[in-house]
């Protein structure tokens, strides 16, 4: 069991977690973020619904250590340049309103570039007590398809991540992107990730990279009378596996390079819009 951090650990940021871990608004906004992504997932035949019922950040903060400070990567500027035209809309979904420009991307990019833009490479070490509660409807397809439907409660705990993450600040927008696990062999060969334009290297070999989630525990709870039924347990095991994949995918698709979480503080002071880079 992990308590509050008392041991002297190397970290750069002083984190005020007491206020954050219990904050209902924060927990709820993460919950609805997760739910909106669960909705877009194609469910397997043995699951009929999937929903995050509660989310709690817990009492243990991540340890965050600053590793490098540099200029932001070009990709972030490209993203901003593309967004500039139809404000807030992704250009590839919206080709009709996308104005053709003679100047092209580069000009727009240098227009938004500013000396005060900043990018941090940070090491995030998380082994906290975050809890995610998920409810699902398990469809029993044995002995016949949709033979029975069972409500299942799952609880996800013991999430462990020790990864490198880029945090870039450009003209009132924040970009957060997980790069790789700190033990990823990709780090062995190079002094600085940022210098080598990590984009190309990390982006192409994403499949060979070590998973960003080091540990995760999923417990399930179903109606007691079914505990002895082997086929039910098998399906729950499959459901646990499936959920695990779902969470790995959300992290990879939404927050891991070449995708990122983009917080735009320009239009909305609360700024909880998120989008990925595709």
């Amino acid at each position, binding site marked *: 069991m992990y308590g509050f951090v008392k041991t002297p650990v190397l970290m750069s940021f002083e984190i005020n977690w007491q206020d954050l871990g219990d904050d209902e608004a*924060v927990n709820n906004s993460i919950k609805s973020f997760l739910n909106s992504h669960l909705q877009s997932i194609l469910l397997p035949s043995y699951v009929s619904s999937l929903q995050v019922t509660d989310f709690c950040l817990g009492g243990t903060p991540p340890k965050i250590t600053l590793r490098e400070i540099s200029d932001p990567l070009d990709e972030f500027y490209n993203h901003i340049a593309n967004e500039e035209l139809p404000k807030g809309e992704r250009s590839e979904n919206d080709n009709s309103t996308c104005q053709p420009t003679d100047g092209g991307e580069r000009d727009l990019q240098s227009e938004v570039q500013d000396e*005060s833009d900043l990018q941090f490479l940070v090491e995030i070490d998380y082994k906290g007590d975050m809890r995610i509660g998920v409810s699902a409807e398990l469809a029993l397809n044995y002995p016949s398809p949709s033979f029975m439907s069972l409500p299942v409660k799952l609880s996800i705990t013991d999430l462990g991540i020790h990864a490198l993450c880029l945090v870039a600040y450009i003209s009132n927008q924040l970009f957060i992107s997980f790069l790789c696990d700190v033990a990823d062999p990709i780090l062995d060969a190079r002094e600085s990730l940022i210098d080598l334009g990590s984009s190309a290297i990390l982006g192409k070999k994403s499949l060979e990279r070590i998973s960003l989630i080091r540990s995760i525990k999923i417990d399930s709870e179903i109606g007691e009378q079914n505990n002895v039924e082997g086929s039910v347990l098998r399906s729950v095991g499959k459901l646990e596996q499936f959920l695990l994949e779902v969470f790995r995918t959300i992290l990879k698709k939404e927050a891991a390079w070449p995708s990122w979480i983009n917080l735009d503080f320009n239009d909305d002071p609360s700024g909880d819009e998120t989008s990925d880079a595709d």
Partner: protein
Amino acid sequence: TDRKFSQINTILEKTYYNVETHSPESLDWFNVLIGQTIQQFREEALQKDNIVHSLNSFIARKSGELPHYLDTIKITELDIGEDFPILSNCRIQYSPNSNKQRLEAKIDIDLSDRLALGIETKLLVNYPKPFTAALPIQLTVSIVRFQACLTVSLTTAEEFVPTSDNETSYSSENGGYFLMFSFSPEYRMEFDVKSLIGARSKLQDIPKIGSLIESQIKRWFVERCVEPRFQFIKLPSLWPRSKNTREEKTENDDISMK
């Protein structure tokens, strides 16, 4: 306009100055006087702690105007230097693009000194909630070298416009003479930026931080006093007046005052 041209030529003739052939002058005498003035300023500020204190309380008063991502700023060091600027190679020329209707002095300026300001603050992360995280920052910024070519002239206001709109007193100040000065864009300003960033784990002297600070200072400087911008300062009247008259203290005066 022809009148102005001939006026300037008369001045040059009668002051025995030929802009084509006159050799550059040293400004040694001026350096001494400037040095004295600076020395006096430093003596007044000799108790550096006093400046640090007054600067700190000034910052404290202004803390509401700081950007939301900065914690309170504390000044930890202030070095007002111990050297003096050296001016040299002074020559008079026609102002470029003035059609020979304005004269200006070009002066080389060189300063090797250490003018330093040390501060301590925290970068605040206000997402998802205010003060979610803080990154301690210690910075010492010093200017160690400044070299430039300075242009100085005396002029009236009519040919120039202020760069900011809120210059309300501008029209009322139209009369009289102005001292105008500017630095050529090929100036050299060398910095020494020391940074220490982080709480228990610290990053030291990151080049990006140095260049960030440098560019902010240079931007401030360029926007104010690098060509084509220049500082335009109204000169006081030099007509002798009784309220400006003084004489040296004598022993007797001191006693009679008491």
